[in-house]
């Protein structure tokens, strides 16, 4: 057993089966995970904290439990990681910049506690781009994670380290937080599956907030099934909207599922890479072959919806962190400082106007989801590029395909759907109505039963191959 084990065991479901059958122990899996982190992290910068000793001790304890007949479920003994924003007992809290809370958390966040109760071994906390900045903050004072497919390219953000650690096979899954794409962008850029959950579905207790009306905690893993297993541990039974478990919803059959395609903007915006567009259209054909019906839907003002989410994020983040500004201002990242300052300039009347638009947009989507069960869009404008000096105004004005759903509080799943000519991941996004994660995961799983993009490993860098 070595780090190479995690090349062969790529999903939580596969690890769960092998642990249950006694073919592998939790100690072996966790040791392989730690070995891989030790080997790759100096290059990839995915971790801010590794709980080596306590992870191995927990794995030993879980192996002993199993030997006495107690099996906690599919996460029993599986190594995971969580974004630095998510509190983990005795682990430092940096949140991607020097202005983060200095003291380690005294207790686990609710999400980490629920994962541990389900038997998961949380091996560490992962790097995050500072607060609101999803793109690379060129701040030498903080550790910037790198894309395992090509370390010279962006890993997306802000749940960057969690995405990198999953894609490079350091862990089998993890948790990120998503405000306007922070789970989905790393999933898309690093070539794995990521779920931005319905606002309020997963507890945010013990999680550092950015924009409270947009933030959510979401699972990140190679497959939709792995994400379903993580979500099953994170959501109490009573909250599952009629499903006994998300795993049980994954039938592989999409008969009766109605999928809408919002062509305008999402498939026509001029900065959309042709390879990404083509891969998403191919993905829709796979869904149709799986039994889904496809139709075009109208979704006006998608660009404005993205901007509205961005402005709400800036205003809420600025207000949420206001008390810390006076004492910590120089310690916020350089880009974060400027964006938060711009957010502080928005007036109450501005926010009222944005929220009126938000209400109208949500109502339009509510009507749309009476006609279709899910919407499919590209998950990126283009595959990961090399970081460039940021144009801060474009942070507000550039189109993307994430903020629309954040604005409406809807869940969205990103699944890998190809590689471009340079070998970089391409991804597709599936969106559904509030609390319809079971539908999303069912669609993502059906797609992944017929494709293997989610199982591809980074091959360009020898250390990650």
């Amino acid at each position, binding site marked *: 057993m070595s780090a190479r084990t995690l090349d062969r065991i790529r999903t939580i479901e596969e690890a769960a089966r092998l642990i249950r059958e006694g073919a592998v122990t939790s100690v072996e899996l966790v040791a392989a995970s730690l070995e891989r982190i030790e080997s790759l992290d100096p290059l990839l910068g995915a971790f801010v904290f590794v709980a080596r000793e306590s992870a191995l001790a927990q794995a030993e304890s879980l192996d002993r439990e199993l030997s006495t007949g107690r099996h906690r479920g599919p996460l029993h003994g599986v190594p995971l990681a969580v974004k630095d924003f998510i509190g983990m007992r005795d682990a430092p809290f940096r949140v991607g910049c020097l202005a983060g809370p200095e003291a380690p958390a005294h207790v686990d966040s609710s999400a980490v506690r629920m994962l541990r109760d389900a038997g998961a071994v949380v091996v560490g906390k992962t790097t995050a781009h500072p607060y609101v900045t999803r793109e690379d903050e060129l701040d030498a004072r903080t550790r910037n994670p790198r894309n395992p497919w090509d370390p010279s390219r962006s890993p997306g953000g802000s749940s960057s380290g969690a995405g990198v650690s999953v894609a490079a096979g350091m862990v089998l899954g993890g948790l990120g937080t998503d405000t306007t794409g922070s789970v989905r962008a790393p999933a898309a850029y690093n070539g794995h599956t990521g779920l931005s959950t319905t606002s309020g579905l997963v507890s945010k207790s013990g999680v550092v907030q950015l924009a409270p009306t947009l933030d959510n905690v979401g699972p990140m893993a190679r497959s939709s099934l792995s994400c379903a297993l993580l979500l099953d541990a994170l959501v109490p039974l009573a909250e599952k909207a009629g499903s006994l478990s998300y795993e049980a919803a994954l039938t592989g059959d999409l008969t009766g599922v109605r999928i809408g395609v919002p062509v*305008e*903007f999402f498939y026509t915006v001029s900065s959309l890479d042709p390879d990404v567009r083509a891969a998403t259209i191919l993905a829709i054909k796979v869904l149709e072959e799986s039994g889904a019906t496809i139709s075009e839907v*109208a*979704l*006006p*003002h998608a*660009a*404005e919806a993205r*901007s*509205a989410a*961005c*402005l709400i994020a*800036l205003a809420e983040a*600025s207000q949420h962190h*206001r008390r810390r*500004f*006076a004492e910590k*201002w120089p310690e916020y990242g350089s880009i974060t*400082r*400027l*964006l*938060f*300052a*711009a957010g*502080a*300039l*928005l*007036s109450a009347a*501005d926010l009222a*106007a*944005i929220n*009126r*638009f938000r*209400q*109208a*947009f949500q*109502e*339009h989507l509510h009507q749309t989801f009476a006609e279709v069960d899910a919407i499919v869009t590209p998950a990126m404008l283009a595959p990961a590029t090399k970081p460039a000096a940021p144009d*801060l*105004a*474009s*942070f*507000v*004005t550039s189109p993307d395909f994430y903020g629309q759903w954040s604005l409406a509080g809807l869940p969205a799943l990103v699944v890998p759907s190809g590689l471009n000519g340079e070998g970089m991941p391409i991804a597709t996004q599936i969106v559904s109505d509030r609390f319809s994660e079971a539908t999303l995961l069912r669609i993502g799983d059906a797609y992944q039963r017929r494709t293997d993009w989610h199982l591809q490993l980074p091959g360009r860098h020898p250390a990650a191959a």
Partner: protein
Amino acid sequence: MTEQGDLAHVRTHLAATGIRLDDEELAQVAAIATAVRHELAQIRSATVEPTAVAADHVPTLVPTDGR
């Protein structure tokens, strides 16, 4: 939103929130603010407010050709 290009206003407004910027940062924030003002105008023009103010009258999206 504070007025575009009014750097003194931006500086005063931000100082009241505990944010102190040097001149270079102030110019960058003013540039972001200009973009924000443009997006705000787009957002406002995309929303139709109801003519009545009763609770069951809600804003709607402005229809767009082909969308």
